[in-house]
């Protein structure tokens, strides 16, 4: 068990990150945190923040189906795809700092976001 990584630092809530402003070091606005990706293991306590899904407009998933190619009524799929066109991803190592008080995340760069595929 990787217990030497026992967390003893400051405590925050994931909800504080959702909707946070994302800016580049020069102050250019890049969007808002739409979701937070966690990765790691083996236990849930070993998962860490891997990166942020950033969208230009607002937070709040469209019924949670933004990033999944869920088969379904074509109408809903088309709407979801349209709403999701501007999503991008910030890797953890591209995060310069997080200002929890101001709800602000300063990042070096943003990468394109890959769609998760629904299981066959």
């Amino acid at each position, binding site marked *: 068990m990787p217990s030497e990584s026992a967390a003893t630092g400051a405590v925050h809530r994931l909800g504080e990150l959702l909707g946070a402003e994302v800016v580049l070091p020069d102050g250019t606005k890049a969007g808002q945190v739409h979701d937070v990706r966690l990765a790691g293991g083996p236990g849930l306590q070993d998962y860490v923040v891997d990166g942020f899904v950033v969208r230009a407009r607002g937070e*709040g*998933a469209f*019924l*949670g*189906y933004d990033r999944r190619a*869920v*088969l*379904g*009524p074509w*109408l*809903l799929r088309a709407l979801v795809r349209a709403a999701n066109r501007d999503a991008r991803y910030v890797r953890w190592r591209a995060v310069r700092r997080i200002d929890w008080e101001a709800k602000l995340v300063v990042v070096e760069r943003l990468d394109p976001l890959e769609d998760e595929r*629904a*299981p066959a």
Partner: protein
Amino acid sequence: MKRIFAVALGILTAIGGFVDIGDLVTNALVGSRFGMSLAWVVVVGVVGICVFSEMSGRVAAVSGRATFDLVRERLGPRVGLANLVASMGVTFLTFIAEIGGVALSLEIATSVNELLWVPVVAALLWIVLWRVRFAVLENVFGLLGLSLVVFAVALWQLSPDWGGLWQQVTSPSPPSGESWTQYSYYAVALFGAALTPYEVFFFSSGGVEERWTAKDVATMRLNVFLGFPLGGALSLTIAAVAAVVFLPAGVQVEALVQVALPVALALGKIGLVIALIGFFAATFGAACETGLSVGYSIAQFYGWRWGKFVPPRQAARFHLVVLLCTVLAVPVLLTTVDPIAVTEYSVVFSALALPLTYLPILVIANDPDYMGKRVNGRLANALGTVYLVVIVVASVAAIPLMILTKGGQ
């Protein structure tokens, strides 16, 4: 043999349990004013409730999760909460209407004023919800509700002009004396009466409590596809007898006793007694369902333990909510508000709130994370999408039509 008996019981209770105060009142009212020219709305509504009940039943069986559980997961806390408040509000309004309906049925039977019955009914209802087993509840009120078949018998006995009735069915336009605005308003009301939101909460929650699995989907479909349409047919006979008796006389149905009058005319006192038993069963059964549904929605939203299958002390918040609903319904009815008026508002507001319930179900029924291989097929999706459009149209039209017609005058 036992299996066939169980399946038959399920279908019969589905038929008998289909009609509630909204169906009783709205169908009779529509029959008396519009004849059978709005019959198509009942057909459309019944197909709709079949489509969405099957979906929510399948979701419950395959994922083990009930509807409101999943609404919050999909909509998030803020929009989900708005959905919860709206759904609970409409269901609570319907609950009040059902209790009023029970009290009115008892008033007709005993000539004791409805207001005196209200607290008695509420107390009795709460005791039933507290102590009576879920299966007993469903079966007793479902089977007793079959008494409403007396309406079909009465229709036959009245020897109506069948050709004339069929004429009305096939000409979907307002009869003379009614405008298109009023016709549309009652179309929305009838639609809301058939496609009640609470039905889906109740159905899927019951499925989760009874621990349905994928193996139960076939039986569930039988209950839905046989039981609900036949229940819808019963609604149509209520409209038909009203059309036969009241329409030519230009009398508008405004009281519950008038709904039963055609049966009394056709079959005498015995017919009236059977009709009243049917009214009592339909309204009391629906009062149980709506009361439980208010509890289900909030408990599932917040992740509380819920249901009748655990001792009440292990689902204390759920039972507290149900108790509060029953208590709060009484003063509302004691303001002497006409339960028929409450019913009319409840069906229109049901139509208003429908998109909130059905959109998440349609989306979830397509999600392989919950449904695995049993996601919606092409037919379910085609019907679901068509109905979503119909539901949104009805919802958007509800309030403007209510204002334009001043509540259906």
